[in-house]
């Protein structure tokens, strides 16, 4: 029986922030196994990993209240702009596909947030990949391949550590020292539930991380020089890593996922026009596939200290729109893709310039392939006979 702990929020959490605050509570304290906020934003229910002493409980409550205050106090009510609304499109399934995916062996959970897929999901993902590659062709996007590791130095240059510290995944290795390596090989063991029994000082300082996004690699490759021809369209698919703490429970939030991106670099009007053209192209593609979804204004999941200002800025300047697919089994939606405009943020921070010397603007269209497939299965089930004909035919090709 899990321990639960209810907190009366020091200030009412506005309805538009309930989801955002709730997701951040997973990072407040290692004792929190799950968190939920009442619809009126007044009560916070925490599920704890074990019983806490009174002093620990008070410290936990203080941390929770500070997060609520930091994120909600003086929050600007966002403009909600809906560019497309196809949520009422007919679907044929209303169950959670996850139990069947697990029981059939189509999905296996290697570790929390780490999943392997069988042939059905793999082929379904390829169906969606073909749509995105067709879009990339439409724009004459040049293909790129990027590493799974990403430079700590470069991520620091684009202020990633300040904005998204909570979701980082670090890469390290044993220090190149004979005693350390021999000691590890003789004594290393996984001790559940704590992990490897290796002392932290055996590991090297962090020079690289596991990549949180695909397009950053392109911007890093273009850094510190003028952009040849003044504009560029590129595409790549890659592994991405975002640690989601206790939020990682199903394919909705995976630690390791793959993202396909179409990336635009050039003057502002070039980026904005192409972002819009991509959205219009995909609107037709998703209609053909029968997906039920909505495209609406959104913001990135900035951490607590940066959240209020950065989210308000993104909203005010309409920098991000999410494609949120219907999940009929929970009467909710899941972000499966996004249309992003970064203004000249990467151009300025990485010194990528246009022929006139001004910083480039950038934008991207990004889709999480596993989430796309999961949302599709949540709408149409695992039996291809119940899928929309174009998807079934593409699946069988």
């Amino acid at each position: 029986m899990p321990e639960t702990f209810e907190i009366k929020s020091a200030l009412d959490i506005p309805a538009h922030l309930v989801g955002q605050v709730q997701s951040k509570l997973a990072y407040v304290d290692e004792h929190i196994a799950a968190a939920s906020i009442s619809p009126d934003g007044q009560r916070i229910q925490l599920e704890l990993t074990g019983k806490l002493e009174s002093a620990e409980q008070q410290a936990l409550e203080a941390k929770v209240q500070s997060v609520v205050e930091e994120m909600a106090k003086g929050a600007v009510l966002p403009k909600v702009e809906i560019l497309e609304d196809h949520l009422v499109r007919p679907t044929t399934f209303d169950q959670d596909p996850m139990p069947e995916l697990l029981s059939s062996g189509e999905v296996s959970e290697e570790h929390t947030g780490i999943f392997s897929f069988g042939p059905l999901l793999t082929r379904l993902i390829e169906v969606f990949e073909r749509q995105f590659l067709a879009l990339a062709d439409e724009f004459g996007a040049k293909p790129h391949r990027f590493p799974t590791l990403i430079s700590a130095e470069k991520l620091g240059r684009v202020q990633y550590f300040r904005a998204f510290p909570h979701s980082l995944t670090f890469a390290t290795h044993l220090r190149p020292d004979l005693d350390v390596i021999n000691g590890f090989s003789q004594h290393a063991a996984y001790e559940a539930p704590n992990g490897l029994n290796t002392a932290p000082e055996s590991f090297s300082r962090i020079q690289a991380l596991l990549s949180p996004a695909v397009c950053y690699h392109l911007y890093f490759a273009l850094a510190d020089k003028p952009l040849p021809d003044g504009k560029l369209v590129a595409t790549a698919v890659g592994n991405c890593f975002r640690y989601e703490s206790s939020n990682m429970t199903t394919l909705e939030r995976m630690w390791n996922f793959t993202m396909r991106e179409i990336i635009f670099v050039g003057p502002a009007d070039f980026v904005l026009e192409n972002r819009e053209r991509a959205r219009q192209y995909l609107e037709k593609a998703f209609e053909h596939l029968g997906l039920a979804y909505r495209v609406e204004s959104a913001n990135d999941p900035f951490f607590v200290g940066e959240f209020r200002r950065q989210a308000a800025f993104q909203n005010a300047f309409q920098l991000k729109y999410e494609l949120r697919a219907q999940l009929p089994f929970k009467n909710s939606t899941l972000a499966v893709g996004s249309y992003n405009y970064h203004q000249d943020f990467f151009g300025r921070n990485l010194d990528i310039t246009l022929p006139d010397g001004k910083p480039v603007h950038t934008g991207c269209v990004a889709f999480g392939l596993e989430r796309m497939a999961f949302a599709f299965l949540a709408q149409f089930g695992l039996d291809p006979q119940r899928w929309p004909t174009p998807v079934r035919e593409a699946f069988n090709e």
Partner: protein
Amino acid sequence: MSENALFDQVRSTLAEVFDVDSAEINAEAQFGDLPKWDSMGHMDLMLALESAFGVQISAETISQLTSVPAILTHVDGLQNA
């Protein structure tokens, strides 16, 4: 408030938020001209303007106030409303 007095107050607010000398801020300054006038700096500026002039800046307006002339026009309009 006279036009000059309003400009002086807006300029001193920008100088304080972006940690520069007032003399570095001209009447045409805009988003991106000063090293700290970026996305985070812009939101700091909006809060500072609200506090300095006792006005409320809406989400709809934040994206329009990206230059000194736009800020002057908007603050003047709110104060005289």
